[in-house]
Structure formats: structure tokens, C-alpha cells
């Protein structure tokens, strides 16, 4: 089947998917959508541009609070507040870009860790608790377009679907363009990349702004889905979770990040019955995937593809 047909099939599946599902499952699917954007945002930064960040939760928080506050405090419409939150978060990506100019991977990881911790600590300080709501956080209004309010799980799912698909298409366009190639070139052979005219400063800035933008949108989306935001959600654990989504899905592959995000969003819900063993099973699942799929879930499928000619017939190359 040609590529267009595959995309149409996928779109159709996503549209009919929620029918017959419980409201709560539809809600978790929407949350997975937000996580997909966060994972893709980190993958472009880490997998493509080679810049490690374990402070991504800070961008989620900035995006979430910004969208909520633009609506409640400045009275902006959702359709304006939401993208604006992404753009403002994108601008804060430059805060990490500055240390990235001087630091190599491991040291940069520590700097981003510090950034994540600082943002999480700053939000609940008493000086501005009238705005940010301290540790309790604040209520986040439902998304709306004019007088139509996205209120039910199903309505929120379709809104999420449109937002995620649009941003995935944009991410895909960038990843496959000269910008994505410049990221990879600088990651793998910086001297050769520069000799061909790639300005490392410019493309590092692009990577951080793009990553912060996508993560900010993810944070805003999650806040509007949940209806509430508080600093407790944005600890190191959240940053590590996004990190794990990228690694499990397959670093450097955007489809992988989608799989990784969906898998790690649903895993806790599948394991809920296990109660006391929950954390153990969660950890064990991660270890098993990493041992048996060292190139991530997507890498695993790609290798299957090359091993079995039948799959190559079913999914011709380039599809």
C-alpha cells in the first residue's frame, strides 16, 4: 500500500478507536497524546541533536502554568493561550541552550537536572502563591472554541488527536529537513558538519527551542486534560519518565517515541491490579524491554522487517 493509504488507515483507526472504550480509557489515551509530544520533543533534542536533558518536566510545568494563567488571569481565549504557551516555553528553551554551548553530554545532563529542580522549587514559593497557587496548584479551565467547551472525555480526545497530529506532522517535517540532518551531522561528526557550513550555535539553539516548544505544548495539553496543575507533578520522576519513553521507543526515531509514550502511559494502568508489586513490575518491564529490544521497540520492529521478507512485501520500503 502507498504511504498516503497507510496514513488514511491510521487516521481512521484513531477516529473510531474511542467507540466502545470506557471514558477513563479514552482519557488515558488523551494523556498518552500529551506524552507523545513530550517524548518527541526530547527525542529531537537528545536523539537527533545529541543534547541530553533530564529536566524536561520543567518545560511541561512552564507550558501548563502559562496556558492556564493566560486564560484565567489575562482572560485569553484557549485557541490563543494554548499556542502562546508553547511559544513562550520555546523561548525558555534558550535558558538551557546557553550552558549547552559550553558543556558536553554528561555535564549538560547535570545542568538540565538543576534547571528541572529549580523550576519545580520556584513555583510553590509563597511570594507568588496568589498566582501559582503554591503546593496546591490551580484549577485549569477546559479548552473551548467560542462557546463550544470541550468537556467530555470524547470531545477532549478528538481535540487532543488534532493537536497531536498537527504537531507530529511539523516535527516530522523538521526532522526530515536540512535542519534534522544538521542536528545529526553535528551529533556524529561535529568537525565535518562545521566544515560543510553548519553553524553549531544556531542549530543547538533550534534544537532547544523546538524541544521546549513541543514539551510546553505537551504540558499545556496535559493541564487542560486534567483540569488542574500543581508543582508536585513535575519532579525528577516526570523528567525520567519522558527520558524512558524516548529510550524504550528507540532513540533517534520519532515513531519509536510514539510507541514509547503510549506504552509507558498505559503500563501503570495495566499494572494497577498488582498493587504492592506495582513498582517492582514496572521496573521489571523496563529492564525486559531494554534487554530484549536494545534498539527500542521501534528498532525491534525495524529489525523484524529486515529479517522477514513477508513483512517487506506487506509494508514496501518508503511507506
Amino acid at each position, binding site marked *: 500500500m502507498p504511504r498516503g493509504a497507510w496514513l488514511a488507515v491510521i487516521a481512521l483507526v484513531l477516529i473510531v478507536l474511542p467507540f466502545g472504550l470506557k471514558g477513563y480509557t479514552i482519557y488515558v489515551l488523551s494523556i498518552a497524546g500529551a506524552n507523545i509530544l513530550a517524548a518527541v520533543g526530547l527525542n529531537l533534542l537528545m536523539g537527533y541533536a545529541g543534547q541530553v536533558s533530564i529536566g524536561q518536566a520543567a518545560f511541561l510545568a512552564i507550558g501548563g502554568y502559562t496556558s492556564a494563567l493566560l486564560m484565567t488571569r489575562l482572560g485569553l481565549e484557549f485557541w490563543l493561550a494554548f499556542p502562546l504557551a508553547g511559544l513562550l516555553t520555546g523561548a525558555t528553551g534558550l535558558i538551557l541552550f546557553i550552558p549547552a554551548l559550553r558543556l558536553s553530554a554528561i555535564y549538560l545532563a547535570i545542568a538540565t537536572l538543576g534547571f528541572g529542580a529549580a523550576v519545580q522549587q520556584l513555583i510553590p514559593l509563597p511570594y507568588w502563591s496568589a498566582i501559582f497557587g503554591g503546593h496546591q496548584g490551580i484549577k485549569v479551565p477546559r479548552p473551548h472554541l467560542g462557546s463550544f467547551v470541550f468537556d467530555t472525555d470524547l470531545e477532549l480526545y478528538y481535540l487532543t488527536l488534532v493537536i497531536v497530529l498537527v504537531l507530529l506532522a*511539523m*516535527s516530522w517535517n523538521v526532522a526530515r529537513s536540512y*535542519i534534522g540532518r544538521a542536528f545529526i*551531522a553535528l551529533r556524529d561528526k561535529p568537525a565535518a558538519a562545521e*566544515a*560543510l*557550513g553548519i553553524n553549531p550555535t544556531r542549530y543547538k539553539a533550534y534544537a532547544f527551542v523546538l524541544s521546549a516548544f513541543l514539551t510546553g505544548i505537551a504540558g499545556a495539553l496535559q493541564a487542560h486534560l486534567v483540569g488542574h496543575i500543581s508543582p508536585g507533578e513535575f519532579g525528577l520522576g516526570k523528567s525520567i519518565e519522558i527520558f524512558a519513553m524516548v529510550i524504550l521507543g528507540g532513540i533517534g526515531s520519532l515513531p519509536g517515541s510514539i510507541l514509547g509514550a503510549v506504552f509507558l502511559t498505559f503500563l501503570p494502568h495495566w499494572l494497577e491490579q498488582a498493587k504492592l508489586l506495582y513498582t517492582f513490575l514496572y521496573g521489571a518491564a523496563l529492564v525486559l524491554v531494554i534487554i530484549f529490544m536494545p534498539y527500542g521497540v521501534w528498532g525491534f520492529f525495524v529489525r523484524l522487517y529486515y529479517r522477514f521478507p513477508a513483512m517487506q512485501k506487506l509494508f514496501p520500503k518508503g511507506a
Partner: protein
Amino acid sequence: MLTVKNLSMRFGGLQALDKVSFTVSEGEIVGLIGPNGAGKTTVFNLISRLYEPTGGQILFRGEDLLKLRPHQIVEHGIVRTFQLLGLFPYMTVLENLLVGEHRDFGANPLAVALGLPSARRQEHDRRAQALWLLRFLKMEALADAFVFALPYGTQKLIELMRALLARPRLLLLDEPVAGMNAAEKAAMREFIKRINSDWGITVLLVEHDMNFVMGLCDRIIVLSYGRVIAEGRADEIQQNPEVIAAYLGEGISVART
């Protein structure tokens, strides 16, 4: 075209280059040779601005190269290849070639993200250019192959193609035939000759294979321990006693009792 004046480079206690001076004129093929550690690649790394020299000047068409940053060199028409492959291993051949055309890209990032026609057209045109070069060398079957899976000689050729797509006036080739067999070397020699004569590209190359250098270069510069010890045509260099001493060692006659 290229003027190197009193170029010096010191790494800690090691004087890698000591007041090296030479010129390359437009249209020439010049070989830079010398024993291991003579400083040949250091000269390349200084021209491409990877290192900051401890002294001296590099001028290219009247422009002071030392004022430029590494990514600005290509805009002035100098492109290099690397001794240990500078290809991006996890990209396909075509993608590598497209990075070679980086200076001809530059669509607005927003236009790229939104997939606007201007950005698409640019990508399309650059792809067509890269595919044209692949077809020209009868290598179009390799377009979608991953670079790391290809034979070494093929990779070397692709790196040269990538450099050509960056539209060089001066091409710096660091060991273009290292690891190649005789047939590949002959093909590479013909290709470099054509690049020079048909496309008017000036070439400065570093190479250890003496037959290759002697058969290709108009002029040869010999470096030893960071100094220029000789310069001239192939036959002049072969006769030069200092060059012979530098390559074979001065004690050679004693050893041959």
C-alpha cells in the same frame, strides 16, 4: 589563491608546525607530503579553523581566514575531506550528499515545519542535484544505502562527492586513496584530474602513496618535523637529497654495509 605565511602550531611542548610558508595558485593540483607526524593534517586543520595557530597567517583570495569560524570557511569556497572518514554513518548516501549542499539550504524553519511550498521546492531541487551527481558517477543504486555498510573505497568517493556538492574553489583532500586497491586508486586519480580540468577546482591533497602523488600533482610540498624542506615538480622532489634523507633516515648508507 591560498597563501600560508610563517604558520606555526604548538601543542604543549610539541612544535607541530614551525613557520611553514607555501602558496597554492588557482587551477593547480598540489601535493603535501612528508613522513608520519610531519604536520600535514595539522595544516589542513588550521586552514579549516579547527585549531587556532600560535603564529602566522592564512590568506585565501585576499581574505584573512583566521578571522573566520569553522562553519564560515565553506562560504569562501574551501571544502575538505577527512583522513578518517568524515561521513555521517547513520545517514544514507543521499542524506550525506544533502548535508554537502547545506550552504544552499536556508528555508525559514517555520516554512520547513509547516511544509510550505518554498521549503519543499528547496528540498526537491537539492535532492535532484545530489541525484544528478550520483547518476553521473553511476552510483544511483546506492542513494538509499546506509553509509556504514559500504566498502571503505566507496565511502571515500562519497565523501569527495559530498565535498563537491558544497561548490568548492579549493578542495582539501586528506589521504583520498588510503585503503584503496590499485584499480580504485587509478579511478580516483582520473576523477581528481577531471574535477581539476573540467570543473576548474584547485586541489591541495595530503597522501602517503608516492606513486599516486607523483602521477597526479603539478607541484609537491614536502614537510618534515613541521618545516617545509622541499618544494617542486615530482622529478625534482625525487632527486632531492633532503627529501630522501627525511623518508629513509640519514643512517641508511651505514646500515647497508
